[in-house]
């Protein structure tokens, strides 16, 4: 029984971890291309999830259409946020950048609470079967779907950066902004594109998370949970973010298992990632795949 429970938790942890990985990836995308630490990443998830829910509940259109409209909306949303709020702050000290994204996060959270209320709203049922049996394990269909979507996003990310022109421009900007600019890459466009893609991908994660657990402002906490993941993987590594997300997801569910079975302290699922964060910062502040800052005078 205890062993089954552990396996079940680890599978859940793995799938949630994939979702963390997706959010962490969109976080790293912004950080890498525009050197902005986005404390409002969680609110992107929230806005996306609510937008999709609103379309479904208000107009009762099919899910895939609502999802598609949400993605378009979030793309525009990301570009607008970058243009209106972040662009004037290019070159400001890091505290200003951090604070402005914190401000964004408070603002959007309050607005979302205002528009949609503080109670958890379930998504309309999308799947008829609740759970499928894989190798003797009960895996909820939504979890399976979220895992598949996460992997799909990751693969398309990889292809986008490898094959497309914009992806190449973004990689070039991340590598050396000045050199990229001198070779004709429009930095403004790259920044806007980074925010747009990040917001869009976050919205996908938000919708998936909303389908799994229902939508409430709790989704925004994903934006905070993303920090342990990105620190573990290294702030500027997309691969690291994915792995970090998975490790953190599994770790927190393992901590939950220990908590329930042996320790009985409670709340460990929420706090364990932050202990991990502190430990990682102490041992390896640049994570496993991050570039080390070397300062020359």
């Amino acid at each position: 029984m205890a062993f089954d429970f552990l396996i079940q938790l680890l599978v859940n942890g793995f799938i949630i971890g994939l979702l963390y990985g997706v959010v962490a990836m969109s976080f790293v995308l912004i950080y890498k291309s525009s050197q902005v630490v986005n404390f409002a990443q969680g609110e992107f998830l929230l806005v996306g999830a609510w937008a999709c829910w609103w379309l479904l509940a208000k107009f009762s259109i099919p899910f895939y259409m609502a999802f598609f409209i949400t993605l378009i909306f979030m793309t525009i949303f990301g570009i607008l946020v970058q243009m209106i709020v972040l662009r004037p702050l290019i070159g400001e000290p890091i505290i200003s950048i951090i604070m402005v994204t914190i401000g964004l996060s408070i603002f959007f959270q309050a607005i979302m609470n205002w528009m949609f209320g503080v109670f958890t709203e379930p998504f309309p049922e999308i799947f008829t079967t609740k759970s499928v049996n894989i190798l003797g394990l009960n895996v909820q269909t939504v979890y399976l779907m979220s895992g598949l979507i996460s992997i799909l996003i990751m693969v398309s990310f990889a292809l986008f950066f490898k094959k497309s022109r914009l992806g190449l421009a973004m990689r070039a900007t991340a590598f050396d902004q000045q050199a990229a600019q001198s070779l004709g890459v429009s930095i403004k466009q790259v920044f806007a594109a980074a925010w747009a893609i990040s917001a869009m991908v976050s919205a996908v994660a938000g919708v998936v998370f909303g389908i799994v657990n229902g939508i409430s402002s709790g989704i925004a906490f994903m934006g905070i949970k993303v920090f342990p993941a990105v620190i573990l993987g290294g702030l500027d590594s997309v691969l690291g973010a994915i792995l970090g997300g998975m490790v953190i997801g599994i770790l927190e569910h393992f901590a939950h298992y220990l908590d329930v079975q042996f320790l009985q302290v409670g709340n460990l699922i929420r706090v364990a990632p932050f202990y991990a964060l502190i430990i990682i910062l102490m041992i390896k502040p640049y994570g496993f795949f991050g570039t080390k800052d070397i300062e020359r005078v």
Partner: protein
Amino acid sequence: MNLKNSRPCGDFRTSYKSDMSMFEDKKGFYLAIAGVLLLLISPTYLDSYLLSLLIYIGFYAIAALGLNILVGFTGQISVGHAVFFGFGAFASAWLNNNFFIPVFISIPLAAILTSLIGILFGIPAARVKGLYLAIATLAAQFIMEDFFSRATWFTGGVDGASAEPLKIFGIFFDSDEKYFYIVLFWVIVSFILATNLMRTRDGRAFLAVRDHYLSAEMMGINLTKYRILSFGISSFFAGLGGALYGHYLNFVSIEEFNIQLSISFLAMIIIGGLGSIRGSMMGAAFMVFLPEIMDWLTRSLSGTNIDNLLSLSDAIPFIKEASIGLVIILFLIFEPNGLAYRWGQIRAWFKLYPFSY
């Protein structure tokens, strides 16, 4: 941040001593004295509601001052200031309830205890900087919040801790009118302490660490020491503010010291002005009055079409919260130097009136 250093014209200071004086000129000194006198008699002409707002400004200003020393003067970002504020509140109540230390002693003792905790957190934090420090302090915020809910011996757990009202010579300072003087006393002490700190070698070392830490290190400033010291001093003020807060409400609950409060503290120093002592006070006042103003605005709109359309009256808490986020963004974009800088500009304008160059 550098605008502070380029003084406007009409600044006739010639000696080092006058440059380091606490007040810019005689007028500033008289203005401060007048302000304190005005506050001393304020219970006679303010109603109790405004007075309670002033008290709130008082302990928030003390805590914001601490955060400003850390963020504005030393350049270390902290997103977990509220837990130190909370620790001070719990520590004072704990000392008073368990060891029967009188409240007027337990308040500064709690501040010292908090500064020790701050140093404890500062030791690992001294290794990382900038963005990483922000994330580390964010983690500290959640870990300490978890500690508060767990340590029932210290905080009373979910029931919270009761804090006795302050008592000196048999007089209970339990009403707003009386407690106001206690807060005012500590506000004045803290602001004088902080101003003087910035005039000492340590204060200048903080500035050097902020402006260019590598150069500072080369000039013989021990970076680790000053980063940890800054954490300690900052937590001292946070603990002091928190202890005053606890004994004002007579009850400390574990719910209050969440990330929102930490962000409010950051908002106070951003709005007031990073690296400005008087800015901390202005920012605290702004952040206390902002919800009141939003409240008043919403109520003055009630009954109109806008109100009916958006159902504003139900949304007051959300409007207050959104306004906090909005002012942070607006200040960072349009007034990144904060209110203190604007205040200096206004004073300079009056001083130099017809010819400002």
